[in-house]
């Protein structure tokens, strides 16, 4: 409810009416998977340095038409973030400024729902730029894969069940091969694979067994 009101407000005050399409519904059976790599985890200080978006049409992941961009940030990425996403200052410098990338990205996303893993973080990171740019936040519906996973695996679980919603755990539970992590495109692709399988399972009423042994790998970033 809150978001609908907010969207009505943004729609009314939208600075650039060329972006009204964001408020129109996208093609009926399409969603877009979004992943951002950032200099850190604080939306207030940190910057987006790479972004990838992939459209899913029905049960097909359109990787051949994926959107990928590296963004030249004003800030030098701090060493600890380089360790995570392996984009060094030099790579980031080879990127393009956000004001070039953003219109392309927004057109790519259109009115489609945005799918992601902890999608709120990615959207919050982007909103920082979007707000400056069109004086509105992204109005798109958001779909959280870990939430679908939670419902299929832990929905109705007895109290005290240990929850494990880590990206790697979801991957191995679904049997999806792990690609190199912390590359915006790969992360988006793996998220897309999770999404198509999870939404099919949800539709069929299938559940994910809790007793299934989950192969745990070393903690992310270790």
């Amino acid at each position: 409810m809150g978001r609908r009101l907010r969207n009505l407000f943004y729609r009314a005050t939208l600075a650039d009416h060329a972006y009204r399409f964001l408020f129109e519904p996208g093609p009926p059976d399409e969603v877009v998977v979004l992943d951002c790599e950032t200099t850190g985890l604080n939306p207030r200080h940190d910057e987006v340095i790479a972004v990838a978006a992939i459209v899913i049409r029905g049960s097909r992941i359109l990787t051949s038409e994926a959107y990928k961009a590296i963004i030249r940030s004003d800030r030098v990425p701090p060493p600890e973030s380089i360790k995570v996403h392996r984009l060094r200052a030099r790579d980031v410098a080879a990127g393009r400024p956000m004001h070039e990338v953003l219109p392309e990205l927004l057109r790519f996303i259109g009115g489609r729902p945005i799918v992601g893993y902890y999608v709120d973080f990615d959207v919050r990171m982007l909103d920082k730029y979007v707000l400056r740019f069109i004086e509105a936040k992204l109005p798109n519906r958001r779909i959280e894969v870990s939430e679908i996973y939670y419902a299929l695996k832990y929905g109705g679980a007895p109290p005290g069940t240990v929850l494990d919603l880590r990206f790697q755990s979801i991957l191995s539970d679904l049997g999806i091969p792990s690609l190199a992590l912390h590359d915006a495109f790969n992360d988006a692709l793996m998220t897309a694979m999770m999404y198509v399988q999870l939404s099919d399972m949800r539709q069929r009423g299938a559940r994910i067994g809790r007793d299934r042994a989950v192969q745990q790998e070393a903690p992310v970033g270790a």
Partner: protein
Amino acid sequence: MQGFDTANPPFDRLTHQESEELRAGLDVGYFAPEEVIIPQGSSTDWLHVVIKGSVEVRDGSTVPTVLGPKDSFDARALVHGAAGEDFVAAEETLCHLIPRHVVLGLIHRNAAFAAFFYAEISRKLDAFAQQRKAEGMDSVLRARVREARCRAAVFIDGGATIEQAGHCMKDNDINALFVRDGQRIGVVTGMNLSKAVVLRRLPLETAVREACHFDVVSIDRDDFLFEALLLMTKHDKRRLAIHSNGDYLGFLEDIDILGLFAGNSQLIPGRIERARSIDDLAAATRDIQTQVERLHRQGIKVDVIAEMTSDLNRRLLTHLFGMTAPPSIREAGSLLLMGSEGRGEQTVRTDQDNAILLDRDVPAADLARFREAFTVALDGFGFPPCPGNVMVRNPVWSQPVEDFIRQLKTWVLQGDAEAVMNIAIFLDAEAVAGSADVLTRAKEALFELVRGEAALLSRFASLIETFATPSLGVLGTIMASVGAGPDAVDIKKAGTFPIVHGVRTLAIEKGILKTPTVARIEALVRAGILEPAFGRELSSALHVFMEFRLRSQLQALHRGAMETESILRLDGITTVERDILRDALRVVRQFRDLIRSRYHLGAF
């Protein structure tokens, strides 16, 4: 796009640029359990490469084949427009989707990649065999004769003296000359000259035509070296003339290739001929076995290995027959090899099926002595005895031909499983020593007996149902996914036997005397029983199974576990080999259906 493995055949055939192009065009598809990805008879817009999950290949009747990660499907539906089977997701499955136009573009430009998509497995196999050559996997044997070091051709007139010939050899530093004698061309060697002078005491002035021979064995300079080796083995020669466009160009000697060449099969016939005792022959037997492995390692095609090995085994048994048979048996008897040895399809020795037919009565004591001596010798060579006791030592398999024909008649009347199997074994008989007439007589009598006997033929054909249609893995895949064991397929039951026996059934019906399966198939094609294209497919499929069988046999030998000799582990072969195996099994299935409907096996 990352996550697509271009090292996975057939994509390893692509150049870097081509694989980048492929990656750029990839999508990913998700398929829910039981979703039909490609229905039988339809085409598809994508080549699917499994990322995760499994896909069953169902043809309605039999247990499905299962495809797993890295397997691709379906070349047939993509390129030729119609899938041969249903492709159904067996669990939640993700596939890379390569658009048809991308695949077609790559097929157009890259011949090695294209080979994967050929409709006929015979072409596919040939292409992959050539590929192996290009990869330098196999050695000398696939080189051409012209690439070997060879001796120049020097001609001498037939009227020249032996002395002149000798000097001519010395001057040219060679030890063989071509002799031109009118229209004939012969060959004289240093050894011929020595023998003429020393042993025959011919004067030095004798014309060289008296010392030379005119039955020149020659090979084309564009032939493969393995063909030269085959000729040397067959003719027991250590030197071949090289010809091209009707002219002799020089000589190829065994030592020219020997140094390059780890095998020495051309020396084995000599060793067999020179053998003076059973022990000498036993040594030659071991040589035959070790060279099978060597030839296989060198990448020789399995049909060539089988041909060479059969040839050597026959020489061996012929010689053994000469050593162990008393004169009465030698004159009256015809030694038969049967089963896979009779068909010339045995590589690693698994059992012995042999018999002797006599064209007249022989003294009982002689026969008994021969049975004993022959059997003891084969045991000594380490030939595994035949489980069905189809051996010379069994009186049923060593009797005068008239009695044996009566025996055949009894089997035909009995028509039970054992009788039918005996008939099948006999049908593959090949005479290796003594006159082949008695064998032909017995076989023609058999053809006469079964002519028009639809019920018997049908019982004969029904042996093809002995082993169920193979599953290329359902249970196995499940087992593998729970870590209990890998996929495996019994090559003999799944592939070789149905082809060999089905062809044998058609051969008995049509009265075809030839024994090798490929020769029978050719005869059946000529007789209009099989389509030429299907005949080729069948022969290729047989070679596929023989190749895989030989591999697992050699592995079993090394592990000392011969009971697993025909078990092929699917995790030990590449995805392209799995694909070829799948194609070959598809041919078997088609052939089984053909036999089933021709002989009305539905009634059994």
